């Protein structure tokens, strides 16, 4: 065999090997690149979609305030608001499945006008409040409860001023306090022993550095009685358009009092009918906690809900599945909340 043939054979082999390696390498690189580009386009598209949903009012612009109106085009922003990033309090309530007037997931998807997108919302307070019953001492006429209240944001302690209301059967009291630099405060509450049954401690915490960051927590406990009943055991509370709608699960429910609490103010709710109460429209930047006390047969109860009904989770559940999440700090009635919109395209 001549030498030239051997050289040609080696040259051809080298070329074939290099071409195959290059083809394999370029396929790998181009596939990854095309996937990234597709993800990039999808991310931009879904981000634009989420911003449209959050910062537009939708159609009709006031679809949140009427329980019979469904949105034609979905949007959460408050109509005519001059406050940046402000959402409508009633549109938020209609996202919460605990509200009797909430939208169903098909309702939301229909109004978003997209069939190939999964959509989910979660909304939470800027600060978290953690309350535990630290100790209690029963005397002849009254019982003193000590609560440990911890205010934090993403696990970091927050210095905040507190306003706590204690609601029990035929009893209402309140107390102001401040958390220390480690975010902790101890609050003593005294309840007369004549008032037994479920009691609730409504805690408001307002960050000292920004009054728009006001959070709440409600801690229910038993006062000289059995375990506290669940918040919606006898009554469902459905706030919408500054009216509180009650729906009873039992015919023997007797309502005693109805209250509205904000950080600074407390009100007795005025009944509009047997099952509706007017919620006061306050200018204060604070969530409103609506509390109903009453009895069912022999047991007294304290039911509550928040207005706006935050925290909430609505729409698709993306647990264990890939999605694009977009977070915003938004304002509802002047108070700030965190909103996360989760979206997934059809290919996810």
């Amino acid at each position, binding site marked *: 065999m*001549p*030498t*030239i*043939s*051997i*050289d*040609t054979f*080696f*040259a*051809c082999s*080298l*070329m074939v090997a*290099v*071409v195959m390696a*290059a083809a394999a*390498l*370029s396929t790998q*690189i*181009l596939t990854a*690149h095309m996937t*990234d*580009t597709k*993800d*990039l386009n999808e*991310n*931009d598209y879904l*981000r634009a979609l989420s*911003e449209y949903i959050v910062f537009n009012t939708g159609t009709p612009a006031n679809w949140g305030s009427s329980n019979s109106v469904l949105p034609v085009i979905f949007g959460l922003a408050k109509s005519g608001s001059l*406050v*940046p*990033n402000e959402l409508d309090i009633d549109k938020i309530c209609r996202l919460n499945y605990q509200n009797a007037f909430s939208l169903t997931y098909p309702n939301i998807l229909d109004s978003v006008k997209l069939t190939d997108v999964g959509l989910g919302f979660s909304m939470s307070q*800027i600060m978290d409040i953690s309350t535990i019953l630290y100790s209690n001492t029963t005397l002849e006429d009254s019982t003193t409860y000590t609560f440990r209240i911890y205010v934090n*944001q*993403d696990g*970091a302690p927050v210095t905040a001023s507190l306003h706590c209301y204690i609601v029990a059967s035929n009893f209402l009291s309140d107390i102001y306090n401040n958390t220390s630099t480690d975010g902790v405060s101890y609050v003593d509450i005294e309840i007369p022993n004549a008032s037994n049954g479920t009691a609730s401690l409504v805690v408001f915490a307002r*960050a000292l*550095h*920004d009054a*728009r*960051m006001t959070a709440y927590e409600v801690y229910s406990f038993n006062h000289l009685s059995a375990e506290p009943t669940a918040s919606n055991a006898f009554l469902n509370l459905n706030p919408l358009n500054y009216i509180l709608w009650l729906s009873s699960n039992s015919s023997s429910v007797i309502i005693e009092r109805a209250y509205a609490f904000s950080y600074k103010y407390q009100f007795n709710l005025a009944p509009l009918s047997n099952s509706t109460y007017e919620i006061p429209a306050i200018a204060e930047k604070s969530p409103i906690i609506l509390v109903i006390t009453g009895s069912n047969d022999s047991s007294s109860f304290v039911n509550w809900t928040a207005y706006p009904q935050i925290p909430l989770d609505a729409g698709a559940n993306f647990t264990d599945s890939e999605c694009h999440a*977009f*977070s*915003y*700090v938004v*304002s509802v009635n*002047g108070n*700030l909340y*965190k909103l*996360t919109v989760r979206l997934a395209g059809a290919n996810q």
Partner: protein
Amino acid sequence: MKFLADNRGQIRVIEAFFASVLLLSSLMLIPSDHRMENSNDETLRNVAQRTLITLDGDGTLSRLIENQSWATLRKCVQSLLPSPATWFNLTILDENMNPLNLVQICSGTSISGNMVAAEYVCASSDISFNVYVVRLQLSSVS
């Protein structure tokens, strides 16, 4: 000896080598994924812009600047960022672009990652109507 002296075919090996180099170097022309970084930068820039707008929504931003409450301003910005895993640095400038904050308003030591900045002009709400340029730099901390 004739076998070793016959080297006419070696040029094909050299040709093949150069062709291989040419082919492999063409892979370098495939664009990198810098557009993905651009998309993330755009998201961060939106966050920075919205944070400043929210902070100035009720006049808090200009009030804190007027009072030179830099520690409070740092807490406010930190609270308003949607993710705690975001590094920030805030700079306050007057209308002549001179820095006003002599202490750093940031969430920690400086980082080496990709950084974006948003600028926002705000005016004090008192009768002095001072104008400030606020520059917020953000970076994702992975």
